[in-house]
């Protein structure tokens, strides 16, 4: 991956979050504390402001610095969760990763998110999108197929009952709403896949 590419992908993901911040906040208002879109937008804007300073840096550094902006600026649990994903991905990626090496690094980063959130698959969280993402990447699927799977995985959180995060306080009432973290993950993955082309 060329240095310029990683910056384009991060920019695409950040712009998607900013574009759909209102939708994310509305989803979070239904089953959480209603700040996911606002928080993610604050983080995405901080990342966009940081990107020019990272010009010419290796992808690992760009990912680490972007992740740190999310950690510091988001103001909710999603900051450390997405920040950990980016920073650990930066840490785990070799310089010129093959698809297989990228899949291995992605798995490590997703494991770190699991540990950070003390969460796992099936609890109506962003992990319910990140797990299928990893499977699709590891299977060598093309960006359009990965995008479709990510968006479908977020939709698949609608009938789930939340057992982690603020939505778990609602118990049965969390059923019937899409998880905002799953949706923000899917939106960013979709934007990255669009930028990669297909």
């Amino acid at each position: 991956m060329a240095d310029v590419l990683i910056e384009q992908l991060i920019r695409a993901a950040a712009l998607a979050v900013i574009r759909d911040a209102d939708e994310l906040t509305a989803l979070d208002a239904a089953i959480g504390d209603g700040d996911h879109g606002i928080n993610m937008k604050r983080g995405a804007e901080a990342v966009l402001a940081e990107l020019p300073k990272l010009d010419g840096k290796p992808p690992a550094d760009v990912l680490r610095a972007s992740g740190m902006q999310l950690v510091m600026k988001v103001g909710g649990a999603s900051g450390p969760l997405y920040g950990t994903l980016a920073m650990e991905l930066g840490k785990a990626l070799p310089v010129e990763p093959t698809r297989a090496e990228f899949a291995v690094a992605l798995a490590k980063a997703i494991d770190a998110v699991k540990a950070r959130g003390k969460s796992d698959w099936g609890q109506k969280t962003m992990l319910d999108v990140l797990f299928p993402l990893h499977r699709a990447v590891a299977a060598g699927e093309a960006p359009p197929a990965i995008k479709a799977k990510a968006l479908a995985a977020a939709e698949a959180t609608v009938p789930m009952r939340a057992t982690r995060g603020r939505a778990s306080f609602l118990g049965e009432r969390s059923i019937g709403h899409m998880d905002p973290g799953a949706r923000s993950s899917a939106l960013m993955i979709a934007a990255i896949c669009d930028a990669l082309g297909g």
Partner: protein
Amino acid sequence: MPNVGIVIVSHSPKVAEGAADMVRQMVGDTVPLAYAGGNPEGGLGTSVDAILSAIDRAWSDAGVAVMVDLGGAETNSEMAIELLSESRRDHVVVCNAPLVEGSVIAATEASGGSSLAKVKATAEELSP
């Protein structure tokens, strides 16, 4: 050995400040105490930066117990602890206890010179 420090982390700046007032009323200045409330813009939420600063202000060589309210406060506090220098990281713990009651009990325990492990255990006795 100095007394264990207490850090109070709430989504609400008012709750964090109010809980700190209640701790002060109980233990005066015998325990290093700091609080962090609100997101980086001052709205409801928590800030890793503010938590790091509070840990610094409440620093004690005996360690620091961090009291948190809801999920994001815990996640952001754990993230902040990981960002501490290696020499400090192992001397800061997040307590799984109700914020207000836990803070007062933890500080009272700390004011008697108890270890960080004892302060944490006493606060966590309040958890169901």
